């Protein structure tokens, strides 16, 4: 089940997908759908199964089990009808270094059966991504950013309906990354559907219309970021700071205060109504509590991701399973919260503080895709 609005049609549907490489299970009972005309982000740490999923979608890889439908077709048995409508940019740009940029684009155009206006399309695609001046140079001399741009240009030459980008900003500087993400956003304004794999929360945050959080080869949760954050944080949250943070504890049990989490960085107050904030502040001041900051807090994808990871860990530990602590920089080094923090570079100082209402909503009240089943816990660990 999908948490997106019902007007969107799923262009890709995966159900119960499993795939192993030898003894390693890359995908385990993966369910996923990709709404048409949106950007779907597959978010998860390295080894979560994102790349394998993208490969299964085009039929480049045949899943061991489960059902794959891309444009309503089986990409393995009807790959010749599916792949011409897909454009892929893999984690490595997969370009021919000994050929020029133009030759690379020409090769793709011919393989994908671009017959009309081939030269114009090549020029336009190269111009769009700012590599037209280097089109006749050998790709071996391109910078990483230029290669990514060329790969992006190649992916749209044949005007595909579905674009799959696997870590498209990998190895790029912040400026280039920003430009690439901007290009990707533009793709959907032209009616294309985009699936992007990333382990960078900041990328997913700004880009995703629909998100699938993956780990251990399975989907932990999926839906639009707005719907998901609303589901996990149903009430407005305000951050309060005082010169004496302990005094804020008095608020517990006040009328309208649904939940509270207090730590040195600030007290996160969950209210039943955001309009209560002025009264709340007035009451605190009247009570002699010096307030230094009042700031509404909008839960981010980063908050959501780590909440889910934390809750999974808690449940697994409750079941006596040994799990990686999502906030432990040693045991969890593969998901970067922002640019410039690649695998292995995280430290406790950089970890986001998770301040969320206690507890997940009751499982029985949540739809299927947000359920954190016991089996999920067992399998993901």
């Amino acid at each position: 089940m999908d948490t997106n609005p019902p007007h969107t049609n799923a262009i890709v549907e995966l159900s119960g997908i499993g795939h192993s490489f030898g003894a390693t299970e890359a995908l385990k009972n993966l369910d996923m759908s990709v709404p048409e005309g949106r950007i779907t982000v597959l978010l998860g740490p390295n080894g979560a199964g994102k790349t394998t999923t993208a490969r299964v979608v085009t039929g480049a890889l045949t899943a061991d089990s489960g059902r794959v439908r891309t444009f309503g077709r089986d990409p393995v048995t009807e790959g010749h009808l599916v792949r011409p409508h897909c454009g892929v940019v893999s984690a490595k740009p997969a370009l021919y270094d000994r050929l020029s940029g133009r030759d690379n684009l020409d090769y793709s155009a011919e393989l994908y059966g671009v017959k009309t206006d081939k030269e114009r399309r090549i020029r336009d695609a190269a111009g769009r991504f700012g590599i037209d001046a280097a089109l006749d140079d050998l790709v071996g001399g391109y910078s990483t950013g230029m290669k990514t741009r060329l790969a992006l240009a190649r992916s749209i030459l044949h005007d595909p309906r579905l674009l799959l980008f696997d870590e498209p900003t990998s190895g790029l500087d912040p400026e280039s990354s920003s430009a690439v993400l901007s290009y990707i956003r533009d793709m959907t304004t032209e009616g294309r559907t985009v699936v992007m794999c990333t382990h960078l929360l900041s990328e997913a945050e700004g880009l995703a219309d629909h998100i699938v959080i993956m780990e251990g080869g399975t989907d932990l949760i999926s839906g639009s970021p707005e719907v998901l954050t609303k589901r996990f944080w149903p009430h407005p949250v305000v951050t309060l700071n005082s010169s004496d943070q302990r005094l804020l504890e008095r608020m517990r049990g006040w009328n309208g205060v649904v939940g509270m989490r207090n730590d040195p960085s600030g007290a996160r107050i969950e209210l039943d109504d955001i309009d209560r904030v002025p009264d709340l502040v007035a009451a605190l001041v009247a009570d002699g509590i010096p307030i230094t900051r009042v700031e509404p807090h909008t839960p981010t994808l980063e908050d959501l991701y780590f909440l889910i990871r934390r809750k999974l860990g808690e449940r697994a530990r409750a079941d006596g399973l040994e799990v990686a602590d999502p906030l432990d920089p040693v045991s969890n080094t593969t998901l970067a919260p922002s640019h410039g923090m690649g695998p292995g570079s995280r430290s406790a100082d950089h970890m986001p503080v998770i301040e969320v209402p206690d507890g997940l909503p009751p499982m029985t009240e949540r739809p299927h895709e947000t359920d954190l089943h016991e089996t999920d816990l067992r399998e993901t660990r």
Partner: protein
Amino acid sequence: MSAIEPNGSFDWHRMWVVARTDLRQLLKSKDYLLPMVGLGLVFFVVVPTALLLTLTRVDSSTMAARVSDSLAILPEAAQAQILGSTPGGRTAYALAVFLFAPVAVVVPLTISTAVGAATIVGERERGTGEFLAHSPASVREIYMGKLFASVIPGYATTIVGFGLYSLMVNLVVGPDVGGWFFPTSQWWVMMLWIIPPFLLLALSLVLRLSARVKSTAAAQQASGLITLPLIGIAYSQATGSLLGNGDSAGWIVGAVAWAIALVSLHRGVRSVTRNRLLGVAQ
């Protein structure tokens, strides 16, 4: 789920696009192109020219007579074909027509094997296999494209070398045997009927290796082991058909080689899978 990609229709244009792109890369690669041209020149032009010039132009009747005596080991049918009135001329004719035949086998097999060994595993090593695996090209089109891209450099070098060799032989030996005589009918049969199937047979095996091994170096090592005996067989068959009676031996050898090559090629298609292009096959 089905693990087998259906055959579907075969797009010859797409196959040629795959082959053409590989060839384009070869042509832009001097580290490959120069040895290829050098090999052809050495085997087809430099060595034969030096030997034949020595026999026909250097005044060493003793040496020519000795080599001429050794022609007695050739089959009678072959000896009967030898033209020339002097020992030097007869020896040069025998060398040009019979003894340089292996060159025509060694050159294309060596060049094409080197290209073929790297062709699929090379895509994987460079990461471009991912692009092909996601592309609409069927595995049959990719396989055949790779095959053509491997055959063409070796065979083209051989044809060009053969042309130069023919010219040189006629210019150097022709005056001693009564005019231009080369290529003989047996050489035409060998070049157009025997060499191609042996080349295809070798490449069908080499491409299978290239699809399976983990590195280009491993593919080249292993393909050397496979093609060495094949070169031996091709050598003996080519030489035998030249030394045999008329053209019939060559036609038969070629027909058998074609049959084996086509079966091997057909079976070789299965070795190329999208999983292997991605480098994730188990």
